[in-house]
């Protein structure tokens, strides 16, 4: 019987990484981000919304700097010293005034600023927690069981209930709201990331890369990350509309931001309380329009960018 004992062991040593050789086999001039942007630019509706949203966000930031803007919490009085309550939209007050005489125009932009800030903060924190948790969950096999159990416990409780409970126990305010929403929002992100990593971790091309001696860093950066970008961007973009929605809900329950902080939740709620009188409905409709434009734009943009950044759509 023939044995193979005399085969030299160095034949089984992985070859060292050679950057030049690695590039030769790759796509000649494929660039991930260039392709993503090219496909994204083909989507006219998304481009328009990006433009619209960009202007809107920019405007909420610079609005207080324009001349003739009133502070959002200032009560306005007429010449005789009476507060200008429930003034209809007009030349002087573009969106009218509310029940105690505050300028609705400045309140809406101030409120949008607050709500977008909450949304952005929550979105980023969720992204951070979700990526770290999901990556550990999908990559480190020893952690799989415990992390699955923790996830199942948290995921089994309705988000509404966690949010209500947190907001009920802590003192209502900006930080409570952000904390409560961060606690509930990352589940989806973590699960998506974990599933993606489990799916592509042992695909043939990754196996091949590993056999050819590619470092873990390069595998993560070149092979795994492009698949995750679309998911991460989509989830982060979608977390902003849902954060605004939760804020409105918590405010309705009386667990939202204090009344003197203008936010979209507070504005919608103020509008709701007087929506029975038709001539005052503008106080509900104006905040709603701004809110809807923002949430719909983020939703559509998130989906469009997810499509564009998915490498499977690049060829």
């Amino acid at each position, binding site marked *: 019987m023939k044995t193979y004992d005399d085969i030299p062991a160095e034949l089984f040593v992985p070859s060292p990484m050679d950057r030049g050789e690695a590039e030769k086999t790759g796509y000649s001039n494929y660039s991930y981000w260039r392709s993503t942007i090219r496909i994204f630019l083909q989507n006219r509706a998304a481009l328009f919304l990006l433009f619209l949203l960009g202007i809107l966000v920019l405007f909420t930031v610079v609005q207080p700097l324009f001349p003739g803007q009133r502070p959002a919490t200032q009560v306005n009085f007429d010449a005789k010293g009476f507060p200008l309550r429930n003034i209809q939209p007009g030349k002087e007050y573009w969106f009218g005034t509310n029940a105690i005489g505050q300028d609705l125009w400045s309140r809406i932009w101030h409120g949008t600023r607050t709500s977008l800030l909450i949304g952005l903060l929550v979105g980023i924190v969720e992204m951070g927690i979700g990526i770290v948790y999901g990556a550990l969950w999908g990559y480190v096999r020893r952690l799989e*069981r415990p992390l699955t159990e923790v996830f*199942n416990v948290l995921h089994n409780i*309705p988000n*509404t209930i966690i949010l209500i409970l947190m907001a009920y*126990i802590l003192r209502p305010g900006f930080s409570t709201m952000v904390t409560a929403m961060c606690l509930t929002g990352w589940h989806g992100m973590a699960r998506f990331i974990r599933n993606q990593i489990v799916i592509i971790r042992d695909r043939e091309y990754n196996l091949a890369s590993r056999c050819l001696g590619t470092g873990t860093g390069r595998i993560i950066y070149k092979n795994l990350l492009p698949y995750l970008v679309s998911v991460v961007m989509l989830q982060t973009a979608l977390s902003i509309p849902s954060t605004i929605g939760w804020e409105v809900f918590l405010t309705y*329950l*009386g667990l939202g931001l204090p009344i003197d902080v203008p936010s979209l939740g507070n504005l919608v709620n103020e509008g709701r309380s007087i929506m029975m009188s038709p001539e005052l409905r503008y106080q509900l409709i104006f905040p709603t329009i701004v809110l809807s434009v923002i949430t719909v734009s983020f*939703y*559509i943009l998130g989906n469009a960018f997810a499509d564009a950044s998915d490498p499977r759509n690049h060829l």
Partner: protein
Amino acid sequence: MFIYSLKRLAQSLVTLVIVVTVVFLLMRLLPVEGYFGERFDKLDDSQKEAILDKYGLLDPWYVQLFNFYADLSRGDLGTSIIYRANVPVSKIIKPRIPYSVNFGISATVISLILGLGIGKKMATHKGRAWDRVWTGYIILVSAVPSTVYLLFVQLYGSDLLHLPMLFDKYRIGSWILPLVSLSLGGIAFNAMWMRRYMVDELNRDYLKLGQAKGLPYKKIMRKHVMRNAYVPLAQYLPATLLSTVAGSIYIESIYSIPGMGGLLVDVIGRQDNPMVQALVLIFSSVGIVGLFLGDILMALIDPRIKLNKGETR
């Protein structure tokens, strides 16, 4: 299958115990002022002490926790303090359950029938007017917070259609708007799901084989395509049903429906701690039970699934 069910049941029970314990301990973090009732500023220290003692709030937390579980096992959810003073919570909640259940079930059925029908037609009419209009609807419902668009349903529904704005159990007309509101989200979700499922499925090889064999299109649809849709449907149906029953917190509240969801909003406003605690526990158990039933149902229906390999959902 049996082993899987047992394991899944154990998992749900562990979750339930953790949730109950955590909720209970969290509620202990609240200031005790909530327990003194409406005239707490007129009480002196010894009276306050007596009240706290009565509710067992002076015991160490583990004694309280043990007593709480002992009460739970007898079906005692605690006693209301402010909402209806000294009435057991279970007695307050009981007459409200039918409202939540009836609305939840009807809304789930409506959104299932309409949503799946719409989604199916969207897939077969892909890219045409029907598809576009309903895609717009789905985007609107998914993106705009329900707390906002439901206000407009209530406002203009009662304005333009002359329907009653608030719920009144003796007027059938007043049932319409809450039902519509409860179904809107479900319709969008079901339609979106169905459309994606159908579009994927219509390109599958088995469909082409069926057509090549000369099977009538309708039969392929009924016997093969729809058959495969049951599995994912079965998994999420109980959870959706139960979350509609429980999750109508906002809708019950804006239409003043005397169900459990509206009650939660009420007692949060009045800071009635035992009531909040009991309702939060009920709602979270409902969620856990829903996911449990979904997994069991799915395992029953789909012969391919053997979940005892430690597979997560």
